[in-house]
């Protein structure tokens, strides 16, 4: 008998892994506790971290906020009803991971929880006041050319679309700096073409385009922070500044006074991406835009997009019908190009594009590494307000897209994933049928048999149980 270990990879078929978009929680989790400790010296970060916590964890923090001594762990457990014990442990885990609280012994010898000193102090500052003002909110005399909210929205949209347009290689290639290109390359969203060295979009790049604007900005900034560390910009300082921006008020101006040189450089970069507006480089004041304000709400997944819209201007433009037709009220080539990724475009009018979702078009997208979830998410978040409204009247479904379309797109994805890979070891070339049967029955008994064929006298067991099965075989062959 021979055994050949066939090491099949447990990767999925897609050659390009799907794009990972970490939220703040995951981003911070991957950083060292020391880094977190420095971050918690900024009230804004504490506020942002607080909002990112699971809902139960938020209540734990607020209940412990005004307690100066450690609280027994058993007491914290008793706050949550028994049926939600799992959520409770998840909340505790999240708090420990982000070192928001630490374990601290209580005089009685019981284990207790204690909020991190700096986190507690700075969250209190953010909530109740006290401490130093954030650097950028120095008093300014009123701006002669004050900008209103709609202007800022338009500006932010234009700047950000400039980056996106550059990615899809539309005609506009001006207005994007070498730094931005470097970040796109670093993030793997674009890659240098082998022939002429020009930047071309990657599969990850297309997936990036399908994300909501808030997520795009956040992902982009994550990569910016990674490259920033190499350029001797302190990531903690940058992150703190970003969150200062996100907790500022739209339509108000802030002063650049008291900002370090590094931060001024950072500000210029943010200005380029449309996160802040500055009339002139040396203007001494800047206006945060909605892009910057939305950094803190990355978590709003699944919901329609609220980011780049003013008080009453709806941003959605896509209507999906049950007959797989997609109507998109748009004029921008970018949105048409994105829609073309997974639909077959049929008609094009000055302000309307009509497409059909077909098996072929979806499979084309899936082959490009885009997942069904990403497609559905895109359709969902850009849904036309009319679709949002129609939902309330009829049957209450989880998504506002027609269920047939949702199911079919998922089925099309599933039909590509017919293989499941398990690592295993093949046993074959048994000398007798009896030997085979003995070993097969043993493996079956242990519950480790993956596949067997009596005619070919071949069987496959899981990799982990290989040693065990081998030992049994040796014992068996010795005795017989």
């Amino acid at each position, binding site marked *: 008998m021979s055994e050949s270990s066939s090491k099949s990879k447990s990767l999925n078929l897609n050659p390009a892994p799907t794009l990972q978009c970490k939220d703040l929680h995951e981003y911070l989790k991957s950083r060292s506790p020391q880094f977190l400790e420095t971050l918690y010296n900024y009230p804004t970060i504490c506020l942002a971290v607080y909002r990112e916590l699971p809902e139960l964890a938020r209540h734990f923090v607020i*209940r412990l906020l005004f307690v100066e001594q450690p609280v027994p762990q058993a007491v914290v457990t008793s706050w949550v009803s028994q049926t939600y014990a799992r959520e409770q442990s998840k909340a505790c885990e999240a708090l420990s991971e982000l070192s928001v609280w630490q374990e601290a012994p209580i005089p009685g010898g019981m284990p207790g929880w204690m909020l991190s000193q700096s986190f507690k102090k700075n969250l209190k500052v953010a*909530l109740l006041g006290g401490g130093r003002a954030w650097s950028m909110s120095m008093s300014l005399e009123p701006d002669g050319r004050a900008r209103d909210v709609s202007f800022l929205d338009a500006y932010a949209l234009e700047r950000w679309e400039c980056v996106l347009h550059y990615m899809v290689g539309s005609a506009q290639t001006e207005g994007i700096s070498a730094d931005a290109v470097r970040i796109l390359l670093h993030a793997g969203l674009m890659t240098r073409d082998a022939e002429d060295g020009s930047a071309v979009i990657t599969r990850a790049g297309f997936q990036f385009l399908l994300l909501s604007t808030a997520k795009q900005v956040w992902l982009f900034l994550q990569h910016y922070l990674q490259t920033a560390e190499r350029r001797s910009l302190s990531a903690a300082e940058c992150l703190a500044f970003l969150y200062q921006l996100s907790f500022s008020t739209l339509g108000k101006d802030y002063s650049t006074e008291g900002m370090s040189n590094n931060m001024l450089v950072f500000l210029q970069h943010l200005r380029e991406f449309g996160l802040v507006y500055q009339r002139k480089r040396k203007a001494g004041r800047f206006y945060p835009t909605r892009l910057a304000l939305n950094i803190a709400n990355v978590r709003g997944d699944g919901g*329609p997009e609220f980011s780049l819209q003013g008080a009453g201007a709806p941003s959605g433009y896509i209507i999906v019908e049950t007959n797989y037709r997609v109507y998109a009220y748009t004029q921008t080539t970018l949105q048409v190009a994105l829609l073309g990724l997974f639909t077959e475009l049929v008609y094009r009018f000055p302000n309307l594009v009509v497409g059909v979702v077909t098996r072929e078009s979806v499979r084309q997208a899936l082959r490009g590494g885009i997942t069904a979830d990403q497609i559905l998410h895109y359709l969902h978040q850009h849904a036309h307000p009319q679709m949002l409204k129609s939902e*309330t009247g009829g049957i209450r479904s989880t998504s506002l897209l027609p269920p047939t379309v949702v199911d079919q797109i998922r089925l099309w994805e599933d039909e590509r994933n017919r293989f499941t890979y398990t690592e295993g070891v093949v046993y074959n070339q048994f000398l007798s049928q009896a030997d085979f049967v003995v070993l097969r029955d043993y493996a079956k008994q242990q519950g480790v048999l993956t596949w067997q064929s009596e005619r070919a006298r071949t069987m496959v067991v899981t990799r982990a149980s290989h040693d065990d099965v081998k030992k049994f075989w040796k014992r068996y062959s010795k005795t017989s």
Partner: protein
Amino acid sequence: MADDEQPSDSSLLVIIVDTNPNQRYITEDPKVLTGCLDAVIAFANSHLMQKSRNQLAVIGCHFHKSEYLYPSPGKPLDVRQIDGQYELFTLVEKTIKMRLVNLVKSQPLDEKPGESLLAGALAMALCFIARMRREATPGLKTSSRILIVTGSSDTAAQYINYMNVFFTAQKQQVLIDVCSLDKHLSLLQQGCDITGGLYLKVPSLEGLLQYLLWVFLPEASERTKLVLPGRGRVDYRAACFCHRELLTIGYVCSVCLSVFCKFSPICTTCHTVFKIGGPLPIKPKKKRMKV
């Protein structure tokens, strides 16, 4: 009562603060009001801190009128950051304090402070919630609730108004929470029970903020997960329409269901005339013939 278990995208909280000067805790020591107000403001800000889309309104309830303390009608105050506090929180604090001063100043001096207009304030809160719902972006899930912080004593004078407001709130799926600072309030407790909110009588005013944060901060979907004070027994006595007294047994108009403590031949609410004068005569029991 909120039936959906999934957490909402945003939650709207309307806080009604009773600022009537004839509340017992204020007449004993006026400075306590400042402490209570600070606690309410801190609580309001913690609500805004929970989620970035959370919304807040604060209504001041006086004996002559109720008024929005936050958000202020018209243009918001131009507030710049003064210390480490989040600018929005500073704005909330400053607006509430400024507008409360205006409210207190506007009270008629020659009038003796009467009862707080809590039912009116509740109606205002419901109007505000209705407006926010109308203006909300379609597709956004919003849960709303009202919190009443009051130290007034229980009176049945506004009984009908209360009941109207309570049942409207129930229909609108708005929770009403009540935090009583002084006495037990059986009428408002009924409102909590009807709408599925929580009722708490604070044992001591010193720890007010902690009580608020512990009990009233979790929104409806989170309340099932946490261990919170139970409903207890609710006093469901109705107030009669003639003298506003709480009754256990009374007369009920068979047409409009108005409650009276004494019999009257004409219902004051729907003007129905009852033909039978006086209580039903007790019929002498027919004695069965013994066989």
